[in-house]
């Protein structure tokens, strides 16, 4: 008997509390109602919802609010690209400005075998930690290969392959998380005026002699590219490409410079060309592996 009375009283007490709080909160909801601009909801719908932060805001909702309330440009979303910018422009009633897709370019081309003067490193296996230590490898500019960019990427689009961060441009959406994660700042966001563009795959600013001591492939600052093509400017022993003047249809001089480069540091990056795909066509594709919770390694950074 006592148990039933206890249960009955408990249920009644909770029920009365629930009714009381429902009444109070229901009243507060109407009394403190905030009108929200319906365009914000429409913008959130039009955005991809990746919440990657590539636009410079915390998430898609914050960017949508900024577009509606603070007249922020509509072309900031790198994931949605041109289609998303047009959708936002239609909602806001403004003209969409053409926006180029920005994609990351890794300014290093050395794989493990190309790097010299490497020392055994037993510390925390992250680039941020290894970058604090002097002498992990000879080159103080190049990719460390511990994969901070790989862990930062939400889209599985950058991988450390044989000690070098390599972008998978078929998956990349250009959010820039890898560029922010790289402690050596060798990943930059470049405007892709075509599917495949030229890039300089080295970041070493030391003189040619010092570069040859630490790397088999690094740029030695010989200025051949600068003499061959006006797109290249060598500063601090390192060429850079003027992407504003870059025209994908007229690359004669630049292609010649690429062929002349003694270290082959001017490379083509971007989505795989038809030729690359044909070359891969003969190789057997690995089976698609389904994740297994018993064998999949947790990607948390701390493994101490």
């Amino acid at each position, binding site marked *: *008997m*006592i148990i039933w*009375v*206890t249960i009955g*009283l*408990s249920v009644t*007490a*909770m029920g009365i*509390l*629930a009714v009381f*709080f429902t009444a*109070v*909160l229901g009243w*507060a*909801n109407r009394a*403190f*109602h*905030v009108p929200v601009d319906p365009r914000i909801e429409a913008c959130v719908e039009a955005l991809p919802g990746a919440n990657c932060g590539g636009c410079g805001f915390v998430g898609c909702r914050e960017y949508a609010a900024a577009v509606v309330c603070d007249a922020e440009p509509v072309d900031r979303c790198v994931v949605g690209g041109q289609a998303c910018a047009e959708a936002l422009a239609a909602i806001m009633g403004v003209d969409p400005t053409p926006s180029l897709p920005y994609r990351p370019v890794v300014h290093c081309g050395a794989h493990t075998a190309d790097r010299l003067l490497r020392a055994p490193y037993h510390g925390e296996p992250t680039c941020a930690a290894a970058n*604090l230590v002097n002498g992990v490898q000879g080159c103080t500019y190049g990719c460390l290969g511990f994969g901070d960019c790989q862990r930062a990427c939400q889209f599985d689009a950058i991988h450390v392959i044989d000690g070098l961060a390599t972008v998978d441009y078929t998956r990349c959406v250009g959010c820039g998380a890898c560029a922010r994660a790289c402690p050596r700042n060798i990943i930059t966001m470049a405007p892709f005026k075509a599917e495949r563009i030229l890039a300089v795959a080295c970041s070493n600013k030391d003189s040619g002699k010092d570069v040859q001591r630490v790397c088999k492939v690094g740029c030695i600052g010989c200025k051949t590219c600068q003499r061959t093509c006006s797109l290249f400017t060598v500063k601090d022993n390192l060429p850079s490409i003027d992407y504003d003047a870059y025209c994908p249809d007229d690359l004669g001089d630049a292609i010649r410079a690429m062929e002349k480069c003694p270290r082959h540091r001017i490379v083509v990056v971007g989505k795989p060309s038809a030729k690359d795909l044909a070359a891969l066509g003969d190789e057997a594709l690995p089976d698609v592996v389904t994740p297994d919770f018993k064998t999949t390694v947790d990607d948390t950074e701390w493994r101490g």
Partner: protein
Amino acid sequence: MTYLIDILLIALGAALINNFIFYYFVGICPFIGVSRRVEMAFGMGCAVTFVMTIAAAISWTMTRFVLMPGAPLTQWIAGWWLDPQTAAGVDLSILSYIVYIFAIAASVQFVEMYLRRFFPLLYRSFGVFLPLITTNCAILFACLTIMSRLVGVDDPAARWDLGQALVLAIFGGLGFTLAIVIMAGIREELEACDVPTPFRGAPIALIVGGILAMAFMGFTGVDNGLKTALTPPAVVAQAPPTEPPSGAPTP
């Protein structure tokens, strides 16, 4: 008079001597998360104080009249079906946690709606930390402290009344505000300091919090001293005139 002294000691204890953050280490997540700027920290402190007061009032009322063993309302209703002796055994204190969380969550919802309407800037800067007050252990801690002064206290005169419960909540909230504002002030200065890379962000904040807690430990024992100093001497005069055993301090 004794009641006033009691209130004073509860207030001082909650705000300074047994500060929720620096003595009991409850409510650490807003303490670290929202202590970047002083005005945000002050807003958070006010929100926590408000929620704590509401939650303390509701939980005291519920505990005193419904939940504790022998609570009048429960006794009266149980008396309809049971004889008085069995009715005294009805114990609803099993519900205490769920009722407290319920009260806290509802008051947080209320504060959130209020802030969203009247302080949109503060609302935006709080972000996720405002709903997180729901799971702020400092508030549940205040409710549980009040419960411990009601349930299991045999002497009816020693049970806390609503005034004591509210004083604990308000001054506990003020202590929380004080702690988080001091912390925010220090962290604003830290922004300009050359902190070694591995210590930046949360680690240096935790270290600063620990040093602050050590400073607040200096208040330990002040409440006992105050109690002795404020107790009317008449009570001392009535003490037995025999000499206490030498060297043995009376607790």
